[in-house]
């Protein structure tokens, strides 16, 4: 089984991605600070289904100095990586002028420095293996903007630049690098949006609804597949036509 690492893979979007990749036959290693009931249930389900595998490892991705050691340990335990999904992020919201400096720095560390550093170490095992797949979770707000999400948007926009440049850097080795930009979906991260805002976003979308976790998970699953072998350096928007 090919190994795929999914950050923040124990709840919300990350869990949906981890389950989708496991059902496609990958051995998924989800890392997050806590396992949680949903992840434990998903692991039991994947074991029952008998297709793919789902493992959990505890790690705080804000602990950037230990990321190199984490990857060494995971490679020792599971072998080299074929895939990486940089999903973990903090959904910092608030007006910039009143946001604590520490909140800005924390968002940049977790949403930018951490995935860049993790990718540095994980991509090495792809370099010595048979190619690989990297998917970075961006957001539609990185291109459209949204009041109260300036810091979050900045971090997500940085991942699209990272995606395009890294795609060029590692393309000759058969490694694809893409981003998926979800629209607003109902997860814990969007809890600061009230239901009226979500209804309004759905009304303004071409399909008159919000995308769901499974839609984003399917996009990642496709980018991991052989069918996507010639897709790299792109941003795939999954927003039910909100930005159409």
């Amino acid at each position, binding site marked *: 089984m090919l190994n795929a690492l999914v950050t923040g893979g124990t709840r919300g979007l990350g869990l949906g991605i981890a389950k989708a990749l496991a059902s496609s036959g990958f051995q998924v290693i989800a890392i997050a600070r806590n396992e949680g009931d949903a992840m434990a249930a998903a692991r039991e389900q994947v074991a029952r289904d008998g297709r793919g595998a789902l493992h959990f490892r505890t790690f705080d991705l804000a602990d950037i*100095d230990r990321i*190199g050691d984490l990857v060494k340990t995971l490679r020792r335990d599971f072998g080299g990586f074929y895939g990486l999904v940089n999903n973990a992020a903090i959904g910092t919201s608030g007006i910039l002028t009143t946001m604590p400096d520490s909140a800005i720095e924390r968002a940049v560390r977790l949403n930018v420095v951490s995935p860049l550093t993790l990718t540095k170490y994980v991509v*090495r*095992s792809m*370099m*010595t293996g048979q190619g690989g797949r990297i998917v970075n979770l961006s957001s539609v707000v990185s291109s459209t903007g949204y009041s109260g999400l300036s810091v979050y948007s900045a971090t997500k926009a940085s991942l699209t630049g990272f995606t395009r440049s890294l795609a060029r*850097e*590692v393309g*000759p*080795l058969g490694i694809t690098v893409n981003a998926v930009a979800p629209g607003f979906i109902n997860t814990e991260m969007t809890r600061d949006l009230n239901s009226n805002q979500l209804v309004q976003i759905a009304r303004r979308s071409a399909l008159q609804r919000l995308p769901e976790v499974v839609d984003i998970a399917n996009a990642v699953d496709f980018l991991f597949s052989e069918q996507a072998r010639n897709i790299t350096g792109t941003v795939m928007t999954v927003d039910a036509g909100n930005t159409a």
Partner: protein
Amino acid sequence: MSTRSVILDEIVRIAEQQKKKLAPLTDDLPLLGSGLDSLCIAVLVATLDDTLGIDPFDRDGDVPFPVTIGDFISLYENAPA
């Protein structure tokens, strides 16, 4: 097999794999004049991390990038165990 031999063998293997023409490998040959491009050197570093368990360019490896083949080999030969 010595560290030097492992590195030189890997350079030859990666050059073949990436279809690069290698210059005769001597200690004073500039690394980027050897025929390997920067991506090949990244693959070399990743491979040596696997085979030798040494990564001079990790978070603590705040070292200037070696200029010649000899400098590169020395970096690995003198790496702390």
